[in-house]
């Protein structure tokens, strides 16, 4: 159902220590945010695309589609930032008048918008690297090591598992409804959808009760104890990561300077 999740468990980095992946994510993201410039953003985007597609082995078609996911937000944002509305006369690269108001694109607005666009793309690439190569079960381990409160880690663990139970349930109900022509038209579709959500709500409530019983049957005392496979840091990996980040940071300083 969730393909990002699928690839997180099926890529060439599954045996790499999650800490190393997190380190790479954090450092690259920092360069992207603290040393922002067009060329830095592009470099980060390309670096991450290379790592994810060539090294981790995620199909490039899927990665390409993924890059389009935040598209609608980006476009809206881009328009909002680039376009200015003003009463005062102003230097527009392109513009028109609507009554008293001038609507148009200023050079400053365009600069901001384009910078923003590529910074976002770079940052999103970092996020994708993390989510496509690091299974959630290992991220939970990381959170624990970062001293996130036990209750939060516990909720994350439970919610992550339950998400898939609910999605499967929703998928089955949706299929059953479609095969009885539930989404044939707007009108029937709305009825069917509200029924789906309602019945999912009731069923998930009941399932939460059942699951609680089954946990208690195994001596659950209100606290999850965690256990995980030991995995060793690889000095070689860390050195490569640090070297790559150093080059990246140097490039960022040279090309963009500190903002």
């Amino acid at each position: 159902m969730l393909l990002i999740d699928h690839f997180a468990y099926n890529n060439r980095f599954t045996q790499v220590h999650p800490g190393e992946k997190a380190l790479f994510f954090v450092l690259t993201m920092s360069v992207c945010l603290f040393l922002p410039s067009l060329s830095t953003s592009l470099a980060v985007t390309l670096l991450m695309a290379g790592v994810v597609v060539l090294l981790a082995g995620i199909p490039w078609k899927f990665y390409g589609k993924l890059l389009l996911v935040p598209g609608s937000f980006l476009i809206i944002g881009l328009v909002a930032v680039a376009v200015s509305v003003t009463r005062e006369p102003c230097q527009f690269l392109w513009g028109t008048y609507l009554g008293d108001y001038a609507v148009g694109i200023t050079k400053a607005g365009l600069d901001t918008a384009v910078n923003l666009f590529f910074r976002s793309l770079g940052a999103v690439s970092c996020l994708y690297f993390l989510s496509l190569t690091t299974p959630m079960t290992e991220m939970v381990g990381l959170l624990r090591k970062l001293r996130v409160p036990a209750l939060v880690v516990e909720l994350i663990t439970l919610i992550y598992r339950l998400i898939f139970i609910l999605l499967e349930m929703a998928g089955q109900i949706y299929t059953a409804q479609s095969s009885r022509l539930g989404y044939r038209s707007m009108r029937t579709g709305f009825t069917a959808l509200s029924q789906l959500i309602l019945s999912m709500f009731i069923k998930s409530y009941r399932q939460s009760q059942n699951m609680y019983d089954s946990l208690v049957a195994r001596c659950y005392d209100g606290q999850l104890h965690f256990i995980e496979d030991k995995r060793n840091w690889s000095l070689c990996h860390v050195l490569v990561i640090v070297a790559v980040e150093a080059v990246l940071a140097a490039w960022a300083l040279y090309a963009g300077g500190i903002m």
Partner: protein
Amino acid sequence: MKKTLLPLINLKYSTLALLYSLLVVLAVPENAYAMHIMEGYLPSTWCAIWYLLTLPFFILGLVSINKTVGLNPKMKMLIAFAGAFAFALSALKLPSVTGSCSHPTGVGLGAILFGPAVMAVLGSIVLLFQALLLAHGGITTLGANAFSMAVVGPFVAYGVYKLCRRLRTPLWLAVFSGAALGDLLTYLTTSLQLALAIPDATGGIPASFTKFAAIFAFTQIPLAVSEGLLTVLIFNLLYTY
């Protein structure tokens, strides 16, 4: 030299951005207009500020959950289910027939059922999952998104609901107003966050806020209404059983 080249480069990059936009429109027409600020959209300072502003509410929520669970241990499972439910709603690419697909957030329902503090925790976790599993929102912008969706939304929904109850309005109206206003305030907060981080080149923060709010209104006002209706439906059902 850099200065003189910049407009040219920008032109090239603008074309790139435009090309990308075209691709988005062609390739993912059913793309949801999720109201999460995406990764990298806020500068680092604002990321930190919103994280810090969310933190006290998050801690308050943890304390509140601990208290609830202490009284009834079964509640932990139920709270987890509510979180998974909220996520599942946002992950379903549901009615391709109904045109634009809206994402009910479930924030209002959760706030009325569990209290707004609990939702600060639950909402933040759901946002984390949305960033990691659905590529909606981001890690650096998690603080900002949590503030609008998991703090402002629930507290407004809860406050409006309580106020309506005190004014002795019918239950359905209280639930509806709570859920719908919660959604509206969430989206206004998001617009404000964006405006603060990216002021308009000529009109500053107010102009920027007006622009963002106006653009998002197209998707967010219908969503607020449908969210209100759906919450009423679920609430009625809960009362029946």
